């Protein structure tokens, strides 16, 4: 089971500032282990952020996003107390959804 994300969603002015950390290997598929066997690629391919039923960011990632990925962005229309929901989906079909409550500025 994948670990929960660490999500921070804070009001800055009229915008919601979202910072998220995801626990994921982001394995490139290009590396070999000590005995010379290739380590299979394992990485997040899709990230979707929604607020009030509307997608506020969607991303497609390759293997060169760093391990334990970090993402930071801003959107308008959110208020303190409302929820931001983030979902990631990796190349093995594993999925994780977490949500955070928007904090005041």
């Amino acid at each position: 089971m994948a670990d929960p994300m660490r999500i921070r969603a804070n009001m800055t002015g009229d915008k919601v500032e979202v910072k998220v950390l995801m626990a994921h290997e982001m394995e490139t598929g290009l590396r070999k282990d000590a005995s010379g066997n290739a380590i299979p690629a394992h990485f997040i391919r899709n990230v979707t952020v929604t607020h009030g039923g509307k997608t506020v960011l969607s991303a497609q990632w390759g293997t060169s996003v760093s391990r334990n990925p970090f993402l930071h962005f801003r959107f308008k229309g959110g208020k303190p107390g409302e929820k931001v929901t983030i979902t990631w989906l990796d190349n093995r079909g594993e999925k994780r959804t977490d949500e955070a409550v928007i904090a005041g500025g």
Partner: protein
Amino acid sequence: MDAKRREVLKTGGGVLALAAAGVIRPGDALGQEWNKAAFDTKSVAETVKALGASGSTPSSGVEITAPDIAENGAVVPIAVESKLPRTEAIAILIEKNPNTLSAEFAIPSGTDPFVSTRVKMAETSNIYALVVADGKYFHAVKEIKVTIGGCGG
């Protein structure tokens, strides 16, 4: 140098509609599509083409914030901001990585044309920020040097 970059980004391919390219779609509700063809590309020109453009124009409206030198290539902080009206998407390309395309973000209206993340760089390379604004492609480029560190390697 700019002229050369413009040259690099001219792919000579026909102009494809964004939807047809199936790549950058702000409305993609679940974001479950993944553009394998684009992520498999091995040069900036190929990536731009795979993302549905025949070329891209350098623009001062695209800003990259990143260090000039990375102490380690496994984590290179990079932020991209677009000042161009109607920015729909932002992509991060790393020229000398085994696969050029690192990430792309669809930016719906209401979301700032800004993303900040961290990428891996295999070696010193140019990083391109490619922006789709009002259906056209623009880019900025920045070289980031990756240093060798530690004592046992």
